[in-house]
């Protein structure tokens, strides 16, 4: 089995999930509670990766991060190295690709928190950030967990975007799914089979654990 590729995939999935947790929670909060009239446009953009072929997304990200374009040039000027075909470039594509898998569950969970609980917190003198931390987040723990697990699992199995942006550099951008593809191309079915089985097992364990944890930790009261 290609342990180097496994390591790259796990590293990428962990980094993507972390970025989505940090950036996705505020974005989901805004989407759930903002009265902004044109919010639907942002919602549509966030959900685009669900319907767009990974190659299309990969193409645009690759173009955007290329040193020929302002974003890519700025990055290259600041760090001295270009983004395409690096782990960092891969991370950017991966975050965008998994965005709806994190933000949608976060957002549904926040929207499901009873508005009366939020108002109770405000009138008890607790500000919006405190209310988010002490009421909304704990009551959304299942949705947040779902988002985290889906992002992780989704990134682990990613292929198209990775190939477009990262290429196939062992130890840096060659992920498990690309390793499997390479093995099949080289007619090494035994190696492809082992890696595939490994990916299947990991994905199943992660999802099964999530569903097990999703049982309500406390009874949610709707009427007295």
């Amino acid at each position, binding site marked *: 089995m290609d342990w180097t590729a496994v390591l790259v995939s796990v590293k990428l999935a962990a980094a993507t999930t972390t970025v989505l947790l940090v950036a996705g929670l505020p974005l989901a909060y805004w989407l759930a509670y903002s009265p902004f009239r044109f919010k639907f446009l942002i919602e549509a953009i966030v959900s685009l990766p669900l319907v767009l072929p990974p190659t299309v997304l990969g193409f645009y990200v690759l173009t955007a991060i290329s040193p020929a374009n302002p974003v890519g040039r700025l990055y290259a000027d600041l760090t001295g190295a270009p983004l395409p075909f690096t782990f960092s470039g891969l991370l950017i594509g991966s975050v965008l690709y998994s965005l709806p898998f994190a933000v949608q569950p976060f957002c549904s969970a926040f929207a499901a928190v*009873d508005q*009366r*609980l939020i*108002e*109770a*917190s*405000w*009138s*008890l*003198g*607790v*500000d919006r950030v405190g209310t988010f931390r*002490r*009421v909304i987040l*704990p*009551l959304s723990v299942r949705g947040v967990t779902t988002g985290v697990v889906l992002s992780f699992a989704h990134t682990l199995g990613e292929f198209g975007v990775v190939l477009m942006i990262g290429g196939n550099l062992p130890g840096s951008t060659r992920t498990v799914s690309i390793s499997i593809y390479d093995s099949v191309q080289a007619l090494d079915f035994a190696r492809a089979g082992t890696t595939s089985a490994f990916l299947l097992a990991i994905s199943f364990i992660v999802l099964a654990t999530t569903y097990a944890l999703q049982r309500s*930790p*406390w*009874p*949610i*009261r*709707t*009427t*007295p």
Partner: protein
Amino acid sequence: MADPDDALRLDLVRRFPGGATIAPALDVPMPGGSTLVLFGPSGAGKSTILRALAGLDRPQEGRITFHGDVWFDAAAGTWVPPQRRRVGYVTQAPTLFPHLSVRQNIAYGAPDVAASEVGVDELAVMCQIGELLDRRPGEISGGQYQRVALARAMAARPRLMLLDEPFASLDFATRTRLRADLRSLLREWHVPTVLVTHDRTDALALADRLAVVAGGVVRQCGTAEEVFGRPLDVEVAGALGVETIVPALVDRFESDVAILRVGQGLLRASAPEPLAPGTRVFACIRAEDVVLQRPPAAASSARNHLDARVSSIVSEGTADRVTLDCGFSLDALVTRQAREELGISVGARVVAVLKATAVHLVLRG
């Protein structure tokens, strides 16, 4: 008018998408321990007023001041957020945080943890929930739930308590007990309170002042006695309900029956528990429960036989509403056939008969 420092003043216009508009205005003294009841039918705009006071709903126009502080001034662009108003806002469940214990719920908004540790236990004992501190909100009864919500609001040291139908969805017995306890708690805490209700018993039992809200405006404001005794007009009377409600004084108590002094007359009312002589109550009588007889009255099991003179008769569809003067004003609802058979007309002398159980007593706040 009242001392400017203890008044609640509001004058609002709130337009809702779809066309509904409410435009209430109020100017009432709210000293510590006093209760203002916003009374009226569902949809009249009571809860919107309360939400504007809490800082949870921002009207388009107007001004709110409480004890001299400006909370809202549309013209000046002032809007104090709920966090900085220090109000205790209690509504129907669910409002307790389901992931926190009762103790954590009560301590949630307390200003500092060290002080709240003592405060929580004290408040819990006062609200009779001392045994429940380690339970979760999902594990307590409806009445207990609202007691915890009250204790939690109080733990944050509010300057003003806002209670929106806090007893709705509770059964009758729980409601009665909680209402009685709430009255003494609010007195003890010495916090001014605005209570929203469409329940007459709540209003009579708790109001120092009563504001009748109908159609999005405050129609009448005064003491409960003034408002129920002299409704401004037919609409206010309709909002208040059709019962005869008269202030009375307990004269004495004899085996489950309270003998009340009402104006010049005496009225017997059954009471579930003994009432001390001198206790101030409201006697509430439904017009349907009053039976009219030609004098002299025949012997019957009914405890009240009141000599009366008919002062007016108004037809209400199948029945006639007969207003009587029997030392106080009393309405009776009788069929036209019965009225014609008995020859009841304006000025006639009749005997109004009603059972002691038909006289509903509400303790005056």
